[in-house]
């Protein structure tokens, strides 16, 4: 446990110095800024919504020279101030995002506002000719999918990227390569969870700002845990199954934090996919035992990802073949099996020195992963940082974003249907698909 904490701190220190994109040139999924690019041809962007999540992104943006923040916008003055302090580039500030969009010298807009505002702001951004980065979940209401799709189709040269940052995580990219290359066999179940003992409440200085600050608690603005937490893992399951669900069942309730909020604090849902796969997601706010994570389970193996640690477990499966094989078996002192029980970390954070059987096994397992071309030594940067680097690279190099409209739409739609299943108690199907 102590090691984990130390490793974590080491990683954070590493990230502080991770401003040099060139260092990551060889990594998959990361677009690297060309060396000759300086601040002069940086993407000029405005940032809308500088609350908690907005400032998280702004902190990463301070280390990305490919973009330059020239304007920020928030309707809540303390957050507006916090945003300016965080980015440190003395941006112009706005309370009305439309004024920010009117500026012709702004190429792109990044949006981290409450969910119910996403579609409107995304559409306005695209129509104002801006490249758009929109936080997840992409939109709030089912009918918004078509509205956004139409506007995006009318502006094909503008990048539209959704903030599903795990798509920019090397850990998850390796995980999905393991899925594609068959390391897990036939994947039939994804189990994911977000568990935390937290009120999910932000402090409000003045009661009149309750709904503004704690918008996540109110159904008028928020999709609750499914939108804010579930959307991440819904996308992981969609990624693993290479498609979107065909139906969902769910249940949930406000079981613990009975403080006037309207959204549930304990939700469960099961999504069915057309190939026979299923995704079970649960989220609770009264117990953090399992942290955040996902298990991808196939008939040949399991990939267990908790926070930023991924462990691969081989599933012992009988091999059946026809005809005799060349039999050659080994005899020797008992070979201990702790290595297999512990699993193999797909990102071992430090090279263990070879001190016996377990280390040897782990080394062989890594060699095996490497031979399949799916081994990376460790997560080299924070996925938030990665997704922002990717966004600017898509704009500057005129290429498809890492999370395009289709991925974001499938994700947001599944959030909406899961919430409907929970609220109605009915199995909810996707239209034109058999459940």
């Amino acid at each position, binding site marked *: 446990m102590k090691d984990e904490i130390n490793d974590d701190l080491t990683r954070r220190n590493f990230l502080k110095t991770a401003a040099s994109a060139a260092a990551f040139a060889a990594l998959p999924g990361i677009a690297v800024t060309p060396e000759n690019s300086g601040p002069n041809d940086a993407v000029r962007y405005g940032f809308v919504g500088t609350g908690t999540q907005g400032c998280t992104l702004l902190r990463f943006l301070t280390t990305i020279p490919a973009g330059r923040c020239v304007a920020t916008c928030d309707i809540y003055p303390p957050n507006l101030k916090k945003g300016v302090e965080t980015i440190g580039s003395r941006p112009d500030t706005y309370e009305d995002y439309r004024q920010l969009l009117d500026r012709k010298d702004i190429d792109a807009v990044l949006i981290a506002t409450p969910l119910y505002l996403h579609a409107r702001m995304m559409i306005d951004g695209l129509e104002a000719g801006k490249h758009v980065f929109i936080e997840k979940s992409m939109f709030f209401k089912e009918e918004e999918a078509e509205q956004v799709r139409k506007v995006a189709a009318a502006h094909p040269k503008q990048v539209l990227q959704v903030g599903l940052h795990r798509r920019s995580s090397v850990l998850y990219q390796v995980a999905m390569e393991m899925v594609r290359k068959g390391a897990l066999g036939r994947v039939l179940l994804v189990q994911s969870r977000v568990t935390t003992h937290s009120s999910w409440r932000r402090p409000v200085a003045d009661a009149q700002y309750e709904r503004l600050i704690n918008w996540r608690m109110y159904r008028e603005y928020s999709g609750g845990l499914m939108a804010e937490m579930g959307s991440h893992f819904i996308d992981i399951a969609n990624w693993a199954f290479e498609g979107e669900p065909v139906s969902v069942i769910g249940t949930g309730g406000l079981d613990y934090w009975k403080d006037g909020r309207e959204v549930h604090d304990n939700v469960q849902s099961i999504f069915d996919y057309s190939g026979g796969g299923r995704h079970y997601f649960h989220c609770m706010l009264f117990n953090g035992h399992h942290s955040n994570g996902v298990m991808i389970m196939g008939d040949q193996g399991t990939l267990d990802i908790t926070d930023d640690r991924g462990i691969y477990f081989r599933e012992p499966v009988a091999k059946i073949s026809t005809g005799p094989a060349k039999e050659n*078996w080994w005899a*020797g002192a008992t070979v201990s099996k702790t290595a297999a029980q512990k699993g193999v970390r797909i990102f071992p954070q430090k090279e263990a020195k070879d001190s016996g059987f377990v280390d040897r096994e782990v080394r062989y397992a890594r060699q095996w992963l490497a031979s399949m071309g799916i081994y990376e030594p460790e997560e080299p940067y924070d996925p938030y940082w990665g997704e922002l680097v990717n966004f600017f690279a898509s704009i500057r190099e005129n290429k498809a974003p890492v999370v395009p409209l289709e991925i974001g739409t499938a994700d947001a739609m599944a959030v909406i249907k899961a919430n409907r299943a929970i609220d109605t108690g009915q199995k909810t199907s996707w239209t034109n698909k058999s459940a």
Partner: protein
Amino acid sequence: MRAAITRYEAAHEAMGTEFTLVAYGDDPQHLTAVGNEVFDEIDRLEDQMSIYKPKSELSVINRTAASKSVCVEPKLFELLVNAVDHSQSTAGAFDVTAGPLMKAWGFFRGKGHVPANSEITQVLRRVGHRHVHLNRAERTIRFDVEGIELDLGAIGKGYAVDRAVDILRRCGVTRALVSSGTSSLYALGAPPGARGWSISLRNPYDSEKAANVIYLLNCSLSTSGNYEKFFKQGAKTYAHILNPSTGKPVENMLAAIVLARCACDADALSTAFFVMGVERSQEYLATRRDLMALFYLPRSGGQGFRRVMLRSFCSNGIGAFFPRTRQRKSRATGAGTSVTLPAAFPAGGEQHGRTIHHYGIKKTAVAPG
């Protein structure tokens, strides 16, 4: 139409290692069901015999048999009788009560440490099969001092292999190999088209090299070696096989390999022979039947190892044999020279200073049973 030959191979974690089963038959569904049965039985045995699980029958015995007689499940009782017999016949070189010693040296859940001599003396008071009393009529066990702990670690995996073979035979499987993490194997029949199951005996210095290759047919083989479980303290390496009479790790032995009719015997005797060394094992084998032993011994003052093979009287052969007589050509002359390898400790053995002792009927090879 005759069904095609099906080969089934599965692995299963149990008893701190991985059991492997390979079986041939004509029905994949049947073989799969038999495999499930075998691994279920191995799990059941682990639940019964593990000293790592407080709920196991063996743990209950260890906790209570010093204060009262404990009634034992018939199969486990049979195994305990067998274990105590081996303890007696090897004069305690294999000792089913050596558990506290393993703990003192940190080989039980620990990382290994050298205990003080006084501690060893203390612990040795709680070691010794003479303190274990089995009442066959009542099927009960009783310890006559406090602190006795039975540990089946040096016989249980072999026993589990035997129980697996029982199931295979009962289910009509005639060609199979069962292995408990390479340390105990049983070769049932032979693979299709082969004379026996080819087994590479691990080089004690290199896990990827074979020191010998041997074929097995209806025969079991167990290995005790010092190269998988050990710890280092200072300049010295301490391996996990302890001499129950001195309370200290055995030195000057790399591996002892025993071939026997059942894996349970092979398992217990490989540990015993590791402790006893060549001379005492020789004496032991002189009074026994159907056993073979192979020792890998360190060379004094250098790398490499030497081999010593011992054999008891074998009535019908015990189903272990080595690659057949080879035609070896002298590179220097190019002339073909036929060399008959006695019991075939393979080619080149003589050059490495091999010693072969024969007991009972002298044969140049041990015929398959």
